[in-house]
């Protein structure tokens, strides 16, 4: 998901040098489905993996404002513009909820921003794809937010309290994101033949990247063990990916669009859709910085940071001036 590359290192950060009794007590709390709160004792590896996962999730939300931001000024109607604006504002807000949650683990927000801007931190690979036309706005809402919801609902029950609570808040808001995207692309699919073709083309371009959002295949992600044991991750990558496919194919059928997968077929015996092989080379390339938009996404984020500096300086200067005035008046 927005955390798809995280689990690679979790096993390497296994518990070591910590009081075994404290580790036992901690695991017992997790096993009892208790929530871990900010000042509770926790293994260093638990803290570290959560800081990485939550901050990477936050970065994804903020970078995720860009593909739709690209079409805001070119929305075809006022209603669509208001809707896309509301979605983009939500994404910013989601990033902020998540940065807050990450900070409860003892990391400064400025450090997290530095990690993003320096390229040290990753964000979800999906946002490294371009939004080429208005149909993409629909495909993103329907498929990307749809996949996100699939991952985020189990996260509402993750063991770390602030993250779980942020996810509950996010899930309530995410639902409209998917609906507006589906409604948008339905409208096009039910439009004239050029519009229908645009809708199909958007699906063709976004389907496989959306499936990659769930991360590597289970057989290639040996390191989810600790995340599952600590109830940060509740379902495997393949389980969530399968759920998403099973839910989404009928949605495409209903509006007469087809997933770009010749191997996609309902398996009556299993009660699931069989699907084709994902191009994991493409996934790795995009994740490692060689996707279509990686450079552009970071450039835009960096420019926003630089161009907003005068606002931050002015705000801090104003607050300082007011503070001095209040002090002086009190004397």
């Amino acid at each position: 998901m927005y955390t798809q590359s995280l689990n690679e290192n979790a096993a390497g950060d296994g518990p070591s040098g910590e009081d075994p009794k404290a580790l036992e007590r901690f695991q017992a709390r997790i096993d009892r489905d208790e929530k871990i709160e900010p000042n509770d004792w926790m293994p260093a590896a638990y803290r570290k993996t959560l800081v990485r996962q939550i901050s990477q999730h936050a970065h994804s939300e903020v970078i995720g404002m860009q593909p739709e931001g690209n079409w805001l000024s070119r929305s075809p109607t006022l209603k669509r513009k208001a809707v896309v604006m509301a979605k983009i504002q939500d994404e910013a807000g989601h990033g902020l909820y998540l940065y807050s949650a990450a900070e409860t683990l003892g990391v400064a927000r400025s450090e997290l921003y530095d990690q993003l801007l320096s390229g040290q931190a990753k964000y979800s690979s999906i946002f490294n794809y371009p939004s080429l036309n208005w149909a993409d706005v629909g495909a993103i809402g329907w498929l990307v937010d749809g996949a996100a919801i699939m991952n985020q609902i189990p996260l509402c029950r993750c063991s770390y309290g602030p993250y779980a609570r942020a996810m509950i808040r996010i899930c309530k808001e995410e639902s409209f994101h998917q609906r507006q995207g589906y409604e948008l692309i339905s409208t096009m699919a039910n439009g004239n033949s050029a519009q229908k073709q645009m809708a199909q083309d958007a699906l063709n371009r976004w389907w496989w990247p959306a499936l990659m959002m769930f991360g590597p295949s289970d057989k290639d992600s040996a390191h989810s063990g600790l995340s599952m044991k600590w109830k940060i991750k509740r379902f495997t990558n393949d389980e969530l990916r399968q759920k998403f496919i099973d839910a989404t194919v009928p949605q495409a059928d209903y509006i007469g669009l087809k997933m770009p997968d010749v191997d996609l077929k309902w398996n009556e015996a299993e009660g699931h859709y069989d699907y084709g092989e994902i191009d994991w080379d493409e996934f790795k390339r995009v994740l490692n910085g060689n996707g279509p938009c990686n450079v552009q996404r970071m450039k835009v984020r960096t420019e926003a940071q630089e161009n907003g500096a005068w606002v931050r300086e002015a705000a801090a200067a104003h607050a300082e001036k007011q503070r001095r005035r209040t002090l002086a008046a009190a004397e």
Partner: protein
Amino acid sequence: MSQTDWPLYEVFIRSRNGLSHKHAGSLHATDAKMALENARDVYTRRAEGTSIWVVPSAAITASDPADKEAFFEPTADKIYRHPTFYEVPDEVENM
């Protein structure tokens, strides 16, 4: 205060008349006025609030989870504080 060092505020929101303020999360702001406006924009985009409190996080004193058992120990065994400790005959109503 430096550019990257704005104070942290905790945000509490009363969602409806009659309910108490509930902790919603936190945010950074240069002063209380900005904190209030940012809290409205971050936490109440769907009219989830009728009232907001913002409190500098540094002003909050919290009980230490490590001391939880000792700190709350006196409260755990006074069962006579609960109504169920007392026997009321069935024939007696309104109690």
